């Protein structure tokens, strides 16, 4: 629980640093991308630390996709 509150606090600090200058310059697209990325970041961190649930590993997916190339390279190197 404490970890979740900590992560939300960090996110609040990031919002406090980044949002006012963006609003001042009226960068709408930047604000949108920033919010999406921050939401992803907070979501991932709370899943990992707050709920202590495992996150799927992107390297597993990449290993699955790149299997043919891996086989080709290891064949070439043997």
């Amino acid at each position, binding site marked *: 629980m404490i970890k979740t509150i900590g992560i939300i606090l*960090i*996110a609040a600090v*990031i919002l406090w*640093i*980044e949002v006012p200058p*963006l609003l001042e310059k009226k*960068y709408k*697209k*930047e*604000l949108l*991308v*920033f919010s999406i*990325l*921050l939401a*992803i*970041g*907070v979501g*991932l*961190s709370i899943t*990992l*630390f707050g709920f202590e649930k*495992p*996150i799927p*590993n*992107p*390297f597993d997916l*990449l*290993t699955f996709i*790149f299997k043919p*190339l*891996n086989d080709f*390279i*290891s064949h070439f*190197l043997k």
Partner: protein
Amino acid sequence: MMQDVKINPYQFLVLVILFTIGTSILTVPSALATDAKQDAWIAAIIGTGIGLLVVWLFITIAQWFPHLTYVQIIEKLFGRWIGKAFSAFFVFIALLYASELLYYFGLFLNIHMLPNTPMVVLNILMAGIVVMGVRLGLETFARTAEILIVVFFVFFFILVVCISPEMKLENIQPVYETGTKKIIQSSIFYVIVSSVNAVVLLMIFPSFVNKMKQGKKTFLIGNLIGGIVIIVITFLCVTVLGFEKTAGEIYPSYELTKKINIGNFIQRIEGLMASLWIITLYFKTTLYFYVSVLGMAQILNLKDYRPLTLPLGMIAVVLSLVIYPNIIYQKHFDDTTGNSLTLSIGFLLPLLLVVVYAIRKRMKKNKIEI
């Protein structure tokens, strides 16, 4: 707003040197010694040679578009949507590599210096200064690199001088026993880690360096100097530790500094020497992170990349804890998928770029003739 930063060729040279040494100084000696045994240092020499060819390919591509970054080149050659897909993949891999290096940093400190501190704390510390460097901009961390490269080479010189009495040349005999084929095969890994990865420097090289002609030279020279450092480290590892111990250690060059002993008085200075790796790791991580942030901003046509740094830093820390469940997984991944990933963004994609560029040029010519 994003385009007004320029660094001079010397600063670029320093960045290339630090990038090339990067993680190779930690991991390459053991990877080379596993296959090439006592001829690991010959493999490092051959690897540097092949690496220069790869860098020459990058320079050729950079020459065609002197004002664009890699992401913009891809978009220009492949068209809008396919180009964006390729560059999104490139940016994603750069972010993954940045978090991979955060993991390396955390693991290294966790094993050797701060065993009771949780790894996430170390990763957050490193990610903090990386994000700070990227927010301050390319110019600032290029200048920092200019200062720290002096520290790096002083420590490197001290290391080489202090360890040289321990060298036993019997350890590399018989020379050239493993044969040409085996040596070249093992050098491929080294080429991939230090030269093919340098494709991310194409985000900086043509567009942010103020003198193009000198910039070309410095790319090659920087790669060569970095290669020489790796050759020296590998040679020292094999001669001092022997190839069996070098292959068995995770960080053979760290083991090497533990051996320093001058008159039973100057001993155990490996903590000082660890700053060598912290410096190079920091700059490699910062470059990867800068590339992923800048690339993402350019794909989405944003005016400024700075707002993206903090959220992406948060994601990178989480990824750094997730991507490698354990060290066996890491070793296996580095040997298989890691190589294919780097080759696909750093070798196959540039080759594809060359082919597409040639076809487009020819089509243009024909149109004019008709």
